[in-house]
């Protein structure tokens, strides 16, 4: 992170690199920790004005990708560009805002003081009042950070990410601990910020949240990009139907042999199957002879699709 090393590349302060409106680009990025391959030729783009969700199970490489994006680590191969330049440089120039996971705020400081500190670190910082307003903190400005609830602290973190008028906004599980109303206001603010030409990349454990708020979803698994597309495209990718029912003495192996069945999960009597041919599966299910109750056939939800894509749903 040395702001003094000017590359021959673009040096524009407004983030318009040679690539046009790119916010973040990964090109064939490889990152290893010893023998463990954290990222395996990962490539993706986030445009400015776009809200993109990054999904993946634990160990998928999300945290590593985030570290590279924020310039905290360097890739072993490939290239990471943020706003047309090296990530560390974009961060040093104050064009990136990050809301990191589980960041406790420094005890003993007041909300207003933490915001003032971070505002002082950015060259084009937002005004104090504007920032308090944006993150819904006006009434909490005088409070000591250690007295805040989880949701309130989360809003302070959001404010920290917005403090420098970033062109790339990165949010790591931003709504953990927020109630429904705060969550709604949070996403409304993110939308408003994105409309101003800010690229937004976020991770979340709430899949419905990715579904509702992302323009595009990236599914990461074991360091590779499994799939990317709009939420509906991701859902469609895991084709077929979900069949749920209760069945006494359900035997996963027998169920797996039914026509059309791709995945089977059995918890006691509760059976969940994914099938590419629900009609034939259901017919064969009744032909098994057990007492099938509460049968429900539905489309594949984003969560089901996600599990199917990353292989965690196979029982």
């Amino acid at each position: 992170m040395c702001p003094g090393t000017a590359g021959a590349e673009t040096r524009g302060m407004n983030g318009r690199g040679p690539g046009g409106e790119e916010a973040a680009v990964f090109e064939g990025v490889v990152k290893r920790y010893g023998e463990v391959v954290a990222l395996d030729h990962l490539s993706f783009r986030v445009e400015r004005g776009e809200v993109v969700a990054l999904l993946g199970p634990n160990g998928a490489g999300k945290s590593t990708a985030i570290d590279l994006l924020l310039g905290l680590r360097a890739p072993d191969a490939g290239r990471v560009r943020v706003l047309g330049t090296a990530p560390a440089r974009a961060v040093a120039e104050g064009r990136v805002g990050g809301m990191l996971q589980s960041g406790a705020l420094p005890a003993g400081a007041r909300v207003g003081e933490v915001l003032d500190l971070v505002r002082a670190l950015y060259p084009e910082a937002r005004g104090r009042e504007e920032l308090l307003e944006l993150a819904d903190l006006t009434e909490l400005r005088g409070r000591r950070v250690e007295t805040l609830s989880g949701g309130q602290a989360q809003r302070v973190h959001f404010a920290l990410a917005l403090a420098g008028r970033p062109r790339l906004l990165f949010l790591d599980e931003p709504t953990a601990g927020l109630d429904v109303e705060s969550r709604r206001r949070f996403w409304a603010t993110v939308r408003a910020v994105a409309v101003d030409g800010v690229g937004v990349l976020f991770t979340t454990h709430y899949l419905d949240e990715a579904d509702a708020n992302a323009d595009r979803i990236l599914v990461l698994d074991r360091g590779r990009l499994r799939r990317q597309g709009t939420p509906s495209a991701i859902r469609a990718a895991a084709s077929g139907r979900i069949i749920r029912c209760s069945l006494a003495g359900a035997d996963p192996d027998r169920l797996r042999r039914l026509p059309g069945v791709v995945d089977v999960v059995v918890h006691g009597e509760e059976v969940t199957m994914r099938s590419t041919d629900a009609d034939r599966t259901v017919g064969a299910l009744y032909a098994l002879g057990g007492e099938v109750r509460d049968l429900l056939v539905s489309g594949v939800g984003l969560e089901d699709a996600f599990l199917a894509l990353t292989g965690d749903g196979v029982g």
Partner: protein
Amino acid sequence: MIEGDESTEVTEMLAYIRFEVIRILRNVRFLGFTVAVPALLYLLLDGIYGGDRVGEVAAGVYLLVAMAAYGAIGAALSANGAALAAERASGWLRQLRVTPLSDRAWLAARLMLALVAVAPGVLAVSLCAGVVGHVELSPARWLALDGLLLLGSLPFGLLGMLVGLLLDAQSAQPAQVLLLMLLSFAGGLFFPVSAFPSGVRPVLESLPSYHLLSLGEQLAIGRPPALDQLAGLVGSVVLLGALALVVWRRSDRAGAERLRRARRPA
């Protein structure tokens, strides 16, 4: 833009130091241990031994330098020790690294913070000694002595930084207390080094806490500082500074562990 960087860095550092100083001044425990305890100890011990002599100096002067150094070392250690370990664990440090505050500016600011944190304790003991303890020094000698105690805390600030970077939040606190006790006792802050067996004295006399005490006594009685002790203090700054830099660069390693843990069940 490049010309602007230096002044921007200074502004950023000042904002950061100001923020941290406010936090320290609100920390009752910190003030208790680094201001109240050394000042009270001075008053207590001065009341008992005030008329005696310790080697070449009056006991009042010895106690002034020793207790001020004790407070200073404690403050310098804790400004970056357990506090830094806790900030590392909590992720606040990571959050800061995502702002334009450069690593260089952060490191420099943390060290300056350690020196600022030393000031209240040094001033409190000086006041006690000057007002109650009847230590009479010329303004120039007061200035030289307190200046030395402030700047001479640098090695302990670096040591605290090492503790904060190397240890986790639970072990940093006891480690910091242990180091303070060790450096204070062995450096002659509670009994003069001459009270120890002569065999161990060369070891004790190579400690930065001893150098700080000894140089302080010399300044207080108006003697030119011993160059070998000055060199010892500067040497410990160079050594600990280099170590802190190495540790800082290596702090990147954590990522591998995290990933291994996450992937273990698969």
